[in-house]
């Protein structure tokens, strides 16, 4: 029997994708947790957390899990003095996972509030609680173009509001924590998908969203062919091939060749647990894959999984005036905000991560892993609640998704 760890972790974003998986892992390690989350109409934070604990099947493990509904933008997190002091008296380490991952310019205000303006309050709590360490979950993509070092951000140019605000957040974490002498770490995961071993996930954004979109487009034309004579399909060269595969000509336009850096959530959790075990203040850790996949490889996975053929990746300046068929037009609209991630050429330095978690490396995203994860998503109807009921699962979506403390966007499951 190991000695029980007496540390109490305060965790934000616990009802989001990464945060919930961290919560699960910490509970399985018998860590004590204070979950900090927003008030929400209709369902309490405690109920939202309870649903997740049930989904992870850790509800009855007897771990100490306390919830506190807070507002990170308010002084003392919006709590009364005695309540705030009591919380600070308990907490010995803070993991700040909460994030707004929307990319669009029209989400700037909300993204800035969640990702930047909320920081001083939670960092102040680190000081007031005398926290041993403040852990900030960022994103690998703040490092800008070129070689991505595990070092403070230099770049000031970002492709979207999300990266811009996360970069600003990293600067503030370093500055504020240094000022108040709170040790801190910054972890930078790339794009995260479900569990590579079980295939399970409780969010179906990012990779899932694109696969599901292709699946829906496939279904539209299969239905047209099967039940309505296939006129619309024929107009754009969509047909069923003799082997039952749907020929769906669809070009994805990318500026250049590159790759997509994807990691499974179990790997993210494993590295995070190592960071929590032996944090080195001021260190930045990249949680990324050394074997990123190309868009062609992912397209091939999609074709195989969905029973379609005809996806083509075209490199250059875009359609260049060529007429796009409707599926292409819609799919490329969907992909547009994520183009930087689909043809990424960066290589991520992992020196700090390797030194901390020797022997740990991201499992390859093989077709088997892909198939396992996507099959699970299909089984639970992409979180729509139409398939097997699975508490704590959120639906697949894009822009309008605003899930829990970790405000998820369409494409990137990451903090």
């Amino acid at each position, binding site marked *: 029997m190991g000695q029980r760890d007496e540390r109490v972790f305060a965790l934000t974003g616990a009802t989001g994708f990464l945060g919930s998986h961290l919560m699960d892992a910490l509970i399985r390690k018998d860590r004590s947790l204070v979950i900090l989350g927003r008030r929400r109409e209709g369902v309490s934070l405690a109920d939202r957390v309870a649903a997740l604990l049930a989904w992870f099947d850790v509800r009855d493990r007897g771990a100490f899990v306390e919830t506190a509904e807070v507002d990170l933008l308010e002084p003392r997190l919006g709590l009364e003095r005695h309540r705030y002091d009591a919380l600070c008296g308990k907490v010995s380490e803070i993991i700040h996972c909460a994030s707004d991952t929307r990319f669009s310019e*029209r989400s700037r205000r909300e993204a800035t509030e969640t990702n930047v303006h909320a920081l001083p309050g939670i960092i102040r709590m680190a000081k007031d609680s005398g926290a041993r360490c403040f852990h900030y979950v960022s994103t690998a993509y703040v490092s800008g173009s070129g070689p991505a070092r595990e070092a403070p951000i230099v770049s000031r140019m970002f492709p979207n509001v999300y990266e811009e605000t996360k970069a600003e957040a990293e600067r503030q974490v370093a500055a504020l924590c240094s000022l108040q002498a709170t040790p801190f770490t910054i972890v930078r995961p790339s794009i995260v998908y479900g569990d590579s071993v079980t295939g399970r996930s409780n969010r179906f954004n990012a990779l899932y969203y694109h696969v599901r979109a292709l699946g*829906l487009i496939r279904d539209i034309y299969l239905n047209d062919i099967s039940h309505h004579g296939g006129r*619309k399909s024929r107009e754009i060269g969509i047909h069923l091939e003799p082997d039952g595969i749907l020929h769906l000509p669809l070009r994805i336009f990318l500026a250049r060749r590159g790759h997509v850096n994807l990691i499974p959530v179990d790997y993210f959790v494993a590295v995070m647990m190592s960071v929590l075990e032996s944090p080195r203040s001021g260190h930045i850790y990249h949680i990324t894959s050394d074997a990123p996949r190309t868009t062609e490889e992912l397209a091939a996975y999609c074709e195989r999984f969905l029973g379609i053929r005809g996806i083509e990746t075209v490199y250059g300046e875009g359609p260049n005036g060529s007429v796009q068929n409707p599926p292409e*037009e*819609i799919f490329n*609209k969907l992909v547009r905000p994520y183009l930087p991630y689909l043809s990424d050429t960066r290589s991520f330095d992992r020196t700090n991560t390797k030194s901390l978690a020797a022997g740990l490396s991201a499992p390859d995203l093989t077709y088997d892993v892909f198939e396992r994860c996507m099959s699970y998503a299909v089984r639970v109807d992409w979180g729509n609640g139409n398939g097997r009921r699975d508490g704590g699962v959120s639906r697949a979506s894009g822009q309008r998704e605003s899930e829990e403390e970790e405000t998820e966007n369409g494409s990137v499951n990451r903090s």
Partner: protein
Amino acid sequence: MCKIDFLGTGVCASGARRGYVSFYPEGRMDLYAALAKGRVPVTEECVEIAQSCDLCGKCDYQCCFVTGLRPTRVMEALKSHVARHLAAGKPVAHADADPFLQSIRMIVGDEWATNDRAIAVTYSHAPSPLAVPALPRYVILPGTRQEISSLLKLLGSAGIPWVVRGNGTNLMGFELCEGAVIDLNRMKEIEFDEKNWSVRVGPGVAAFELQREAAQRGYRVNVAEPAALVCGTMMCAGIVSLFSTAYGSCADNYIDAEFVRTDGSFFSLNEKNAPNLFAFDRAGAVSPGVCSSLRVKLHPMTGDESGALVPFDSLEKAIDFSRDCAMRRIGLAIGILGPEYLSSFMSPTQRTAAEVKDALARKLGIVCMVLVLGDRYAMASLKEMGHPMIGQDLFRVLGLGLPSLGTADWLEFIAGLPEEEPFGYLRGGGFADLVEAALCPSASRLVRDFDPDLRPVYEEVYSRPDLTDLVWLNMFRITSSRIGREKQFLPFLMYLPLDHALIDDLCTGLGSIALRYALKNDFGFITPVDGGKRCVLEYDYFFDQNDGDEIDRIRQAAAEAGAAIDRFSARTGTIRWVKYIFQQGYCRKENLLYA
């Protein structure tokens, strides 16, 4: 609704022959209910009413199209009831001998006045929760203004109260009276004077009938909902439609009107010594008499008119946009429509309407849409304004593909497209094409929810381009009554500044009152008038007219809502509730809006 041939599939022949509402399906349904409750005996007219129905089924086509009801079942029950009564040798009640009735008949003819209770009972109540049921002593159908004059003199001399009514569509219940009900159904003259861009209509002409005649000659008139009588609506509300944006309201709509005063004398508004009906009194006014004819303005139509729906994720943005259009004189007709309105109008059945509302509001995040109709130059301007929109072609695809819309998984995927601009997916042709592939629009699929025997007729109806043409649908408004398909509705209609803060305050206030009384309620529509300086707002309460408890609640809620509107009016000085326009609809719009 069953008195007018909205679908071109015919209406009840006996109704057209006898004129009384009792000989139309809606009257027969009322009569059967009264017989079942023992409110009236089987009378001579009752027997004729029952036997004059040949169960042709035409009323099912007309009625089910908008209400989902099938009156033929009631017609069968009525006929059976009367047949059993006669077979059993039970007595048939004769109308009471009444010398005064003879005097009335001297004026209008024996056929056109009655005191038979089987007829009177069908004029005794209204769907409005505010209406007080009243069984009239006489029902009279005059045929000329001279007959109206003589009637008013006779009734006045005898001290018998009277009301005039048309198709009984008054949602406030103003068409009821214990004395005489004067039904104007026979006075359906329509005389065009194209040289002077006008058409003279009798007081029994309904909006649909006039619009149909005008459209056949290449004109358009500004009229209200299709079953409402043109003269009556002018009197009650000044006529409001989405076309009021371009054509105005109140006195903007007509050239002259002829009246019969309550003492039986005549006047027309173009006479120098006529009463000043162009004025507006905010405290309300008494009736100037009976409008016996109206010269309505004709408006030209161009062959390039079309429409578009511009979706918005907030009412404020929709108001800004519609004001912008109105100020710039872009479009012939503009209306901000809520999802309840849109889904009800578009959907052939209530089940589909519920799915469509969910799809529009929840899945696509549409708070409201602005409908703009106009010629090709207006449409080009609209495009230049840069908002994503649903054009006529996509509307047709959606309209005929509604059955697949509610279950479409791809809707949420489309709504989730990470665009900088709400509804940006509507740009480009790809979306429309994908939607067409996904929905497989067809009239035959659209009508599958109807009973099998109705489907062939409805398939033919929906195959007509009109039924998915935004311009035609808004000119003729034959689907507007669908708003009351699930539940009867009580509209609060008012003129006010096209100002979001004020409208939001009003809607919030009216909504909270309805919620307190557990009533379904929703924002209905907003139409800019007078270049966007003002607008017409409709907010609706819904209730089950067969639920006594709900009727009690809506009465209380309506009283509170009325008081709230009065308070808003007193505070702002700029709100004109339609309640006070009643009897003053012939006024100058400017007197109504600004005086």
